[in-house]
C-alpha cells in the first residue's frame, strides 16, 4: 500500500509545500507557464495568421479586381479652323491655351503642343488626337493671318496648303464617383523612364531591391526625425505609400504603421515590381482641382503641363516628383520660384543617384517653369453634363460612367457654351440691377433662367446652361422644367393653318384674320381671350397677327383650324409633353420644356425636318473601342414649303414685330424669332433661329411669380447678346424658298393679287396653287379659304375677261 500514490489532500499539499519540496513545484509552475505562453502564442499566432490572411485577401481583392475607379471623361466637339475664319472671334489663342498648348519664343523645331507667334503668322505643333475611327496625326502647321482672318493654313515642312484643321476636343468634365477622384490611367510602358527615375529618386531610391519595407530608410528617417525633434522625414517605401493610399487612413498610429508594413510585404510577395510601380503611378495623389482630387501621373501631367505623361520632359518629371510630398502646399501655381527650387533638388538627386547625366541635369535646370494655363472648372458645362448623362442613362448606369473610364465625345461647342453662360449670367444680373424688385436675398429663390442652343439640321446641343449657378441648384430649367410657353406656342397654330390639306390650306400669308372679341364655350365656362394691349384690332393681316402676337386673332384661327390639328402639328415638330385639347392651348397655356421648344423650332429652321436632340457623338472605352456611335437622323415631319412660310412669318416678327429689338445691337442677317410672355409675366421666352442655329432663352422663378416685364425686355437681350457674341454680329446664310413656293405681289390692304393699277403692293410667298384668286384693284378682301362656288365664280369672271381682251 505504501507504494501506491496517495490522493493528495489539501492538507497534504500544504504540508508538502511547507515541507520544502520546491523543485517539482517550480517545474510544474514552469510547465504551466510554458503551457500558458505556448497557448497564448498559439492563439496569437493563429490570430495573426488570420489577420495576415485577412489583409492578404484585401490586397488580392484590390489588386486582382478593379484597381481604380476611373471617371468617364467628356470632351467637347473639336474646333475646326479654316482659311477665312475670324481667329480673333473664335479666340484661337484662348482655345490653344485651354488645350494646354504653350507659347514659345524661339524658332526652330517646335515640340508637340507648342505654338509660336511671328508677324502675321502663328505656327502650331498640333498634337496627335487619339480616336479609334478618326485619329488625327500630329501636324506642324502655320496659320498665315491677315487682320483678324486666317488667310491660309500650310503644313510644314512641305508647305502643303490645308483646307481645314481640327483641334483636338477640349475636356469639359467627368462623371465622378462619391470620392470625386479624377485620374487618367497610364501604362508603365508609356511612361518615360525619367519620370519613373525622378519619382524613385525622391520617394524610394532602393525600390528595385527591397521587399516592401526599407529598414535603412526607416532608420535614416528615425535619425532625421530625432535630430529635428519632429516628424521631418518619412520612412515609407513606395509600396507602403501605395498600400496607405489603397487601404488605410492617413492617421499616424503604430497599429496603422504595422498594418501598412504587413500589407506592403504581402503586396511585394504577391506582385512584381512593375505591377506595383504601375499601380503607384496611377494612384499617387497630386492635389485638388476645385472639388476634384487629382490622382496619378497621367492626370497630373494634363493638369500641370497640358500634355500626356508620355510627353513629359526631364524637368517636368522632376517637378511632378517634387509635388508628391505635399501636392497642395507645394503647388507650383502658388509659388513658382519655390517649385523651381524643389524641382532642381530632385534633379540633383537624380544626378547623384546616377539616373541622369551631368549634361541632362544642366539642361533641365535651365528650363523655365512652363505650366499649363489654369483652365476653369467645368462649372458652366455641368448642366450639359447632366443632360448627357440622362441621355446615356438607358445604356450606361451612373456606376459605369463613374468607374469605367469611358471617353465621351459630346456635341458641345465650348465657345458657344461659354458665351451662353456669360450672356445668361450677365443678362439676369443686369435685369436685377435695373429692376430691384426682381432680386432675392435667398439664392435658392433667385430669378432663374436657361439658355439652350441646337444645330437645327442635326439636333446637336451646342450649348446648354440650365440655371444661374449649378452649385446652388442642379435643376436644369432647359430640359427638366416644364413651363407655360405663352406666345411661343402660337406659330403652331399658324403652321396648322398654312399646311396643305385637301381643298387647300385654311390660310395663306395673304390672308386676314379677325381680331375682334371672341367667346368660346368650354366645360368650365365661356373663354374670352384678350390682347396684351386690351384692345381689339378687327380684321388684320395674318402676318401682323403673329408679328404683334394678337391673342384673339390667334385663338380664332385655332378655332378655324381645330385644336386637335394644332396639337398634331406641335407633336410632329417635337413637342413631347402632354398638350390638353382646350381652346386656350393656342395661346400657350400648355407646359413644356425649353428643350422641346428648341427642337420644335429647329424643325422649322431645317425646312420641316425634325432633328433628334443629341448631346453625344460617340463613346469609346478604355481599350479604345467605340461602344456607341450617334447617327444623324433627318425625319421630315412638315412640308418644306409650310416650314418656309412659317419661317417667313417669324422673320417678320424679328424684323418688325415683337422681337424687333433683336436688331437693336446691329445683328445682321436672317433671323426668325418669337417672343413669349405668359400670364402675369411669370415666364419670359425668346425663341429664335438662324439658318444654322436655334436658341431658346427662358427666364422666370422656380416658384412662379410675376417678373412684371415683357420678354422683349427680359429674354430678348440675352438671346441677342448670345447670338451677337457667337457670330460677331454677322449671321451666315439665308432662308431660301424651297421648290413649291411661289412669290407674287399682293395688295397689303386686301390680300388680293396686285395687278397694274393696284395702289400698293408687296411681295408675298405662297405654296404652289394657293395664290389669291381675287385681284386688286378689281378684287375684294382675300379672307381665309374660299368656298368652291366662290372660286368657280372668280374663275368664270377671269375667263370672261380674257375672252374680251383677245
Amino acid at each position: 500500500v505504501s507504494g501506491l500514490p496517495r490522493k493528495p489532500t489539501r492538507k497534504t499539499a500544504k504540508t508538502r509545500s511547507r515541507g520544502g519540496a520546491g523543485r517539482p513545484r517550480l517545474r510544474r509552475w514552469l510547465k504551466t507557464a510554458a503551457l500558458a505562453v505556448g497557448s497564448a502564442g498559439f492563439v496569437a499566432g493563429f490570430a495573426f495568421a488570420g489577420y495576415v490572411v485577412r489583409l492578404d485577401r484585401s490586397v488580392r481583392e484590390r489588386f486582382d479586381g478593379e484597381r481604380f475607379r476611373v471617371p468617364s471623361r467628356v470632351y467637347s466637339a473639336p474646333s475646326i479652323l479654316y482659311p477665312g475664319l475670324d481667329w480673333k472671334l473664335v479666340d484661337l489663342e484662348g482655345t490653344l491655351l485651354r488645350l494646354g498648348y504653350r507659347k514659345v519664343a524661339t524658332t526652330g523645331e517646335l515640340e508637340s503642343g507648342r505654338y509660336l507667334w511671328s508677324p502675321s503668322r502663328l505656327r502650331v505643333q498640333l498634337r496627335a488626337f487619339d480616336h479609334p475611327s478618326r485619329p488625327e496625326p500630329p501636324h506642324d502647321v502655320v496659320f498665315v493671318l491677315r487682320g483678324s482672318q486666317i488667310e491660309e493654313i500650310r503644313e510644314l515642312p512641305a508647305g502643303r496648303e490645308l483646307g481645314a484643321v481640327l483641334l483636338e476636343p477640349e475636356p469639359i468634365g467627368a462623371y465622378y464617383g462619391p470620392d470625386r477622384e479624377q485620374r487618367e490611367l497610364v501604362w508603365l510602358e508609356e511612361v518615360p523612364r525619367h519620370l519613373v527615375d525622378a519619382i524613385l529618386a525622391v520617394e524610394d531610391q532602393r525600390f528595385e531591391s527591397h521587399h516592401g519595407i526599407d529598414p535603412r530608410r526607416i532608420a535614416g528617417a528615425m535619425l532625421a526625425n530625432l535630430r529635428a525633434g519632429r516628424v521631418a522625414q518619412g520612412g515609407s517605401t513606395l509600396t507602403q505609400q501605395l498600400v496607405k493610399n489603397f487601404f488605410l487612413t492617413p492617421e499616424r498610429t503604430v497599429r496603422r504603421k504595422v498594418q501598412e508594413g504587413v500589407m506592403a510585404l504581402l503586396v511585394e510577395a504577391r506582385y512584381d515590381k512593375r505591377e506595383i510601380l504601375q499601380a503607384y503611378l496611377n494612384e499617387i495623389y497630386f492635389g485638388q482641382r476645385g472639388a476634384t482630387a487629382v490622382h496619378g501621373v497621367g492626370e497630373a501631367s494634363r493638369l500641370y503641363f497640358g500634355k500626356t505623361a508620355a510627353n513629359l520632359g526631364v524637368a517636368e518629371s522632376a517637378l511632378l516628383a517634387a509635388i508628391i510630398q505635399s501636392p497642395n502646399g507645394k503647388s507650383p501655381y502658388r509659388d513658382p520660384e519655390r517649385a523651381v527650387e524643389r524641382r532642381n533638388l530632385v534633379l540633383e538627386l537624380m544626378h547623384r543617384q546616377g539616373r541622369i547625366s551631368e549634361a541632362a541635369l544642366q539642361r533641365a535646370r535651365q528650363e523655365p517653369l512652363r505650366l499649363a494655363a489654369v483652365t476653369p472648372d467645368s462649372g458652366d458645362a455641368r448642366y450639359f453634363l447632366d443632360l448627357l448623362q440622362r441621355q446615356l442613362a438607358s445604356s450606361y448606369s451612373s456606376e459605369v460612367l463613374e468607374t469605367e473610364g469611358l471617353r465621351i465625345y459630346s456635341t458641345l461647342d465650348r465657345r458657344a457654351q461659354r458665351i451662353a453662360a456669360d450672356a445668361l449670367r450677365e443678362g439676369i444680373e443686369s435685369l436685377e440691377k435695373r429692376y430691384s424688385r426682381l432680386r432675392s436675398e435667398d439664392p435658392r429663390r433667385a430669378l432663374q433662367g436657361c439658355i439652350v442652343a441646337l444645330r437645327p439640321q442635326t439636333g446637336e446641343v451646342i450649348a446648354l446652361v440650365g440655371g444661374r449657378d449649378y452649385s446652388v441648384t442642379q435643376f436644369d430649367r432647359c430640359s427638366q422644367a416644364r413651363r407655360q410657353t405663352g406666345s411661343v406656342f402660337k406659330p403652331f397654330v399658324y403652321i396648322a393653318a398654312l399646311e396643305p390639306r385637301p381643298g387647300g390650306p385654311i390660310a395663306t400669308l395673304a390672308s386676314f384674320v379677325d381680331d375682334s372679341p371672341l367667346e368660346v364655350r368650354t366645360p368650365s365656362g365661356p373663354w374670352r381671350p384678350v390682347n396684351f394691349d386690351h384692345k381689339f384690332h378687327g380684321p388684320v393681316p395674318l402676318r401682323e397677327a403673329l408679328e404683334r402676337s394678337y391673342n384673339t386673332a390667334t385663338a380664332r384661327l385655332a378655332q378655324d383650324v381645330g385644336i386637335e390639328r394644332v396639337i398634331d402639328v406641335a407633336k410632329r415638330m417635337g413637342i413631347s409633353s402632354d398638350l390638353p385639347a382646350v381652346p386656350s392651348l393656342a395661346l400657350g397655356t400648355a407646359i413644356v420644356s425649353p428643350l422641346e421648344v428648341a427642337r420644335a423650332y429647329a424643325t422649322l429652321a431645317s425646312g420641316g425636318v425634325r432633328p433628334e436632340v443629341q448631346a453625344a457623338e460617340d463613346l469609346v472605352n478604355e481599350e479604345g473601342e467605340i461602344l456607341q456611335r450617334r447617327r444623324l437622323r433627318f425625319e421630315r415631319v412638315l412640308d418644306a414649303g409650310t416650314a418656309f412660310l412659317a419661317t417667313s412669318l417669324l422673320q417678320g416678327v424679328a424684323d418688325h414685330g415683337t422681337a424687333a429689338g433683336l436688331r437693336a445691337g446691329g445683328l445682321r442677317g436672317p433671323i426668325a424669332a418669337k417672343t413669349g410672355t405668359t400670364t402675369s409675366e411669370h415666364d419670359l421666352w425668346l425663341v429664335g433661329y438662324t439658318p444654322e442655329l436655334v436658341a431658346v432663352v427662358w427666364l422666370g422663378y422656380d416658384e412662379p411669380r410675376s417678373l412684371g416685364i415683357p420678354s422683349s425686355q427680359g429674354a430678348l437681350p440675352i438671346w441677342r447678346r448670345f447670338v451677337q457674341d457667337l457670330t460677331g454680329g454677322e449671321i451666315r446664310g439665308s432662308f431660301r424658298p424651297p421648290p413649291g413656293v411661289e412669290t407674287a405681289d399682293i395688295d397689303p390692304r386686301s390680300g388680293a393679287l396686285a395687278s397694274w393699277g393696284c395702289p400698293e403692293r408687296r411681295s408675298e410667298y405662297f405654296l404652289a396653287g394657293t395664290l389669291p384668286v381675287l385681284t386688286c384693284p378689281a378684287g375684294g378682301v382675300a379672307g381665309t379659304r374660299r368656298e368652291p362656288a366662290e372660286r368657280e365664280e372668280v374663275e368664270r369672271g377671269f375667263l370672261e375677261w380674257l375672252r374680251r381682251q383677245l
Partner: protein
Amino acid sequence: VSGFPVGPLLVLASLAALSSGCALRLAPPPGARVASLRVSDALLEGDATRRASLRLVLQGLGEDENGRAPAARSSYERAIQLDPNNPYAYLALARHEVDAERWRRALEALDQAELLFASESAPGADAHIAGLRGAARFGTGYGDEAELLLDRATRIAPEVWADGRLSADELR
C-alpha cells in the same frame, strides 16, 4: 392709266416670252443630259465656311475611296458641323450610307441633300440624287421604283450611272 390697253399687251408679252423661252431652251429641262456633278467643281463657290466644309467632304470621299469608312463618315459629319446647309455633305453622306447598305439613313440624307440642292445652282445633282435614291429604294425592296430612278440617273449622267453606282471617286 385707265386708257392704256394693259390686258392685251400683257397677254402678248407673255406669249412672246413663252415662245422665246422654248426656242432658246434657257435651262435644261428635267432629265436632260448634263455634266456629272463633282464636289471639287464646287470648291470655288460660296463663302470661306462653305469652302472649308467642301474640303472636309472631299477628305471624306478620299477616305471612303481608301476604305476608311468610319473616318469618312466623321469627315462628312464635321463638314455638316461647319456648314449644316451644305448639300454636298449630305449627298456624300447618302452615298456613304448606300455603300454601307443602310438604306433608310441614305434616304434621309438624300431628302436633306435634295432640299438644299433645290435652292442652289447644281444642275448635275439630279442624277446623283435619283441614282442614289434608286439604289436605296432597290435595297428597301421597291424594285420598280428603283429601276425608274436608276434609268433616270443613267439618262442624265451616263458616264457615271451606267454601272448603276456612284463611287466616292466619281463624286470627288
